[in-house]
């Protein structure tokens, strides 16, 4: 997975390249929006007493994002492993 690494084999038509890049852009925005949503649910209280985040919420958001990325990587890794072992019946 490469975020904005804009990976992809060279030697493809410009149309395909742009399409691949667009897919990646969609992935980034999608992930970001999910992140905003999830971390808001997990960290920000619904009683809106103040318009600023407090220290607790700020730290919670920071850790939420970091952990989300970690989870992302871990899940990616285990997916790869499963794929290699052919547990989905792909390699068999």
């Amino acid at each position: 997975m490469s975020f904005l690494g804009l990976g992809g084999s060279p030697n493809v038509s410009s149309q395909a390249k742009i399409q691949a890049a667009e897919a990646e852009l969609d992935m980034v925005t999608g992930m970001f929006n999910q992140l905003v949503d999830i971390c808001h649910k997990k960290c920000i209280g619904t009683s809106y007493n103040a318009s600023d985040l407090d220290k607790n919420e700020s730290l919670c958001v920071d850790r939420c994002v970091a952990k989300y990325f970690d989870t992302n990587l871990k899940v990616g890794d285990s997916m790869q492993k499963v794929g290699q072992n052919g547990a989905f019946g792909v390699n068999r």
Partner: protein
Amino acid sequence: MDALNAKEQQEFQKLVEQKQMKDFMRLYSDLVSKCFTDCVNDFTSNKLTSKEEGCINKCAEKFLKHSERVGQRFQEQNQLMMQQLRR
């Protein structure tokens, strides 16, 4: 690493701008629905009460600040990940 020539670049730049605008619109509609569900619970009149209004203001501001913070961290983490991938 994908390399693009000048024409592709232009096309891509346009695409990026479109995406960003779209994302901003989506953020806005998210914000509205979020603050509406959290703040507006009284349907005995068709005007927003002053309490609801205050809540919505704070909610909106807080949500935007929250998104900005997430955006900052997102960028940092993304950079970190790219560095790890390069190694």
